C-alpha cells in the first residue's frame, strides 16, 4: 500500500432479511474486522433491504448480499456471500493485508 495507511474503514453490507447467505457474509466480515483489520477502526453497517428499501434505492443495490466499501477511496462493490479466503477479499476491497 502506498501513502499513509488509513485509520478508519467503513463497510456497508446490504442483506435481505436474515437469510443463511446474509449470516454467512456478516460472519465473514466480522471475522475480517476482528482479525485482518484489527489495527483499524472498522465501521461495519448492516442494512436490511426488506426493512429499508429506500436505502437500497439510493445506492442502487440489485443483488443481496452486496458489500460496499464507502471509505477509504477508491469505492468498491462486491456481490455475493463472500465465501472466499480473507486475502482475496482484502485484495478485492483494495485494503492492506498486514498479515500481523
Amino acid at each position, binding site marked *: 500500500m502506498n501513502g499513509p495507511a488509513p485509520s478508519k474503514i467503513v463497510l456497508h453490507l*446490504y442483506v435481505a432479511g436474515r437469510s443463511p447467505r446474509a449470516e*454467512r457474509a456478516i460472519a465473514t466480515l466480522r471475522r475480517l474486522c476482528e482479525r485482518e483489520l484489527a489495527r483499524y477502526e472498522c465501521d461495519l453497517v448492516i442494512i436490511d*433491504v426488506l426493512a429499508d428499501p429506500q436505502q437500497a434505492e439510493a445506492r*442502487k443495490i440489485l443483488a443481496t448480499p452486496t458489500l460496499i466499501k464507502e471509505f477509504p477511496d477508491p469505492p468498491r462493490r*462486491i456481490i455475493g456471500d463472500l465465501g*472466499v479466503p480473507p486475502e482475496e477479499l482484502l485484495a478485492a476491497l483494495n485494503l492492506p493485508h498486514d498479515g500481523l
Partner: protein
Amino acid sequence: MATDVSVIERLPTGIPGFDHIANGGLPRGRTTLVSGTAGSAKTVFASQFLAAGVQLGEAGVFVTFEESPAALRRNMLGFGWNIAEWEEQGRWAFVDASPQADDELMIMGAYDLSALLARIEHAVRRVGATRVSMDSLGAIFNRLADTRVVRNELFRIVTSLKSMGLTAVITAERTHEFGDIGRYGVEEFVTDDVVILRNLLEEEKRRRTVEILKFRGTSHQKGGFPFTVIPGQGIVVIPLSAIELKQRSSNVRISSGSPELDRMCGGGFFRDSIILVSGATGTGKTLMSTTFMASGALRGERSLLFAFEESRDQLARNAIGWGVDFEQMEQDGLLRVVCNYPEVTGLEDQLISIQDEILRFRPQRVAIDSLSALERVSTIKGFREFVIGLTSFIKHQEMAGLYTSTTPTLLGGTSITEAHISTITDSIILLRYVELFGEMRRGLTVLKMRGSAHDKDIREFSIDGTGMHIGRPFRNISGILSGQFTHVAPSEIERLSALFRDEENPLLPEG
C-alpha cells in the same frame, strides 16, 4: 382443459392501434414479454405503456437495466411524455438498475436479486402503481454472469408482480428477426404472453411491424401489423387487416361535377365511396379531381386535397385555367390543399398525417393526386396496406374519396396502383388517349360502379377553359383500353349491334 376466454380481463394499453390488434389490450394482471432486435423500439414501447397509463390515470414503475433515468427522461420528452413532472406528481417512479459508471462490480459467492425485488415493491407501493415496465433483460444478464441465478430471480420477480395484481411489460433482445423469441432463455419464465417487434429491411426500405405471438387462453389478431414511431406520439400501430371493411354504405349520390359523368355513373358517385381515376399523364386526372372538389364547394361541402406531384401554386394555376378558383374556395373554408413530397416520410407516417389532416378539417370530399406517386416510396405490400388503411379510414368518416393513378404508358396499360387496389375501390374511371386518323383524342369510360348500373360506352372526353366535357361514344374504333386500335367500318358495327341486341341490359340509361 378448456377455459372461458371471456374471464381473462384486458388492460387497454392506450398505445394507438395496439389495443385493436390485441382485442382490447394486454391480459390484465400478467406479464407480457416484448421481444425485438436492437432498434426495434422496445424501450419506446415499455415507456409508452406507462405514459399511456399515466394519461389514463394509472401510475407506473419503470425498472431500467440499460439506460439511465436521466437519459430516458430526456429521450422520451420528444414523444410529449414529461416523465420528470409525473415523478413529481407521484405517478411515475424509476427503479434505476442501470450500470453505474463509478462502480466496479465484483462477484464473490452466492447471491440473489432480493434487493431489486424489494426496490420494485417499494416503488409500486409508493406511487400506487398498476403498471410496471422492465427494460431490457439482456443488460442484466450481461452484467451478472450467472444466467441460471438471474433467470430464477427474474422468475421470482415476475411471480411477485403477479401476486400484487400488476400488469407488466418486460422487454428482451433477440439476435434475429425470425427465430428464438429471446436470448438467455427468457421465454422460460414469461411464457404466457409474447409480443414481437420487428424492424425489417425489405427492398431497401425499413418496415416496422408488431406481432402478438401469443396471449395464453385468449384471443388476439394474428400476423404482423405495421407501426411507426412519431415525434409527439410514440408508437402508432396501423391495424390494417383488423379494420372492419363492412362500413355502412349509403345510397346517397353526390355529383362528380360533370352532369355527363354523373349520368354515366347512374346518377353520380355514392357519398361514402372510393373512386379511382386512372390514366396516362395529361389525360385529365387532375382536372377530374379539381372538378370533383369544385362541385362540392358549390354545395357548401368542404374538400381536402392531398397533392403529391404538383405544388399548391401550380395546382391553383391549373384550376384557374378550367374556371375553378382555389383561392376563393380556401377563403370560404371549403378547400384545404396539402402538398407533400412522398419521399420525405415513409408510408406509415404518411397515413398517420393524412388521417390527422382529415380529422382536423373534417371534409366531405377527399382527393388524392396521385396515389401512384406513393408507390415509389414503398414496397408493394406496404403500399397495398397503406391503401387499405386509407380507404377504410375515409369510408368510416362517411366521405367520398377520389384517388388518381398514373399509368406508366401513354396508350393503354395499367399501373401497379390499379393492380393492387382495384378490388378495394368502389368505382373505376379510365381515361385514355385515342388515336383517331392521325389525331390524339381523349376517351373516358366507367369501368366499374359498385352497386349501380352504369354506362359502358367509351366516350370522347375534351378539355377547355370551362373544364371537362364528355361527348359521344367512339363508334368506329376498338381496342382503346389496350392501346391497340383498330378502326371498324360502320356497317360492321351495325351488324355486331344487331347480333347482341337481345343481351343488352335494359337498365342501362340510354346513351
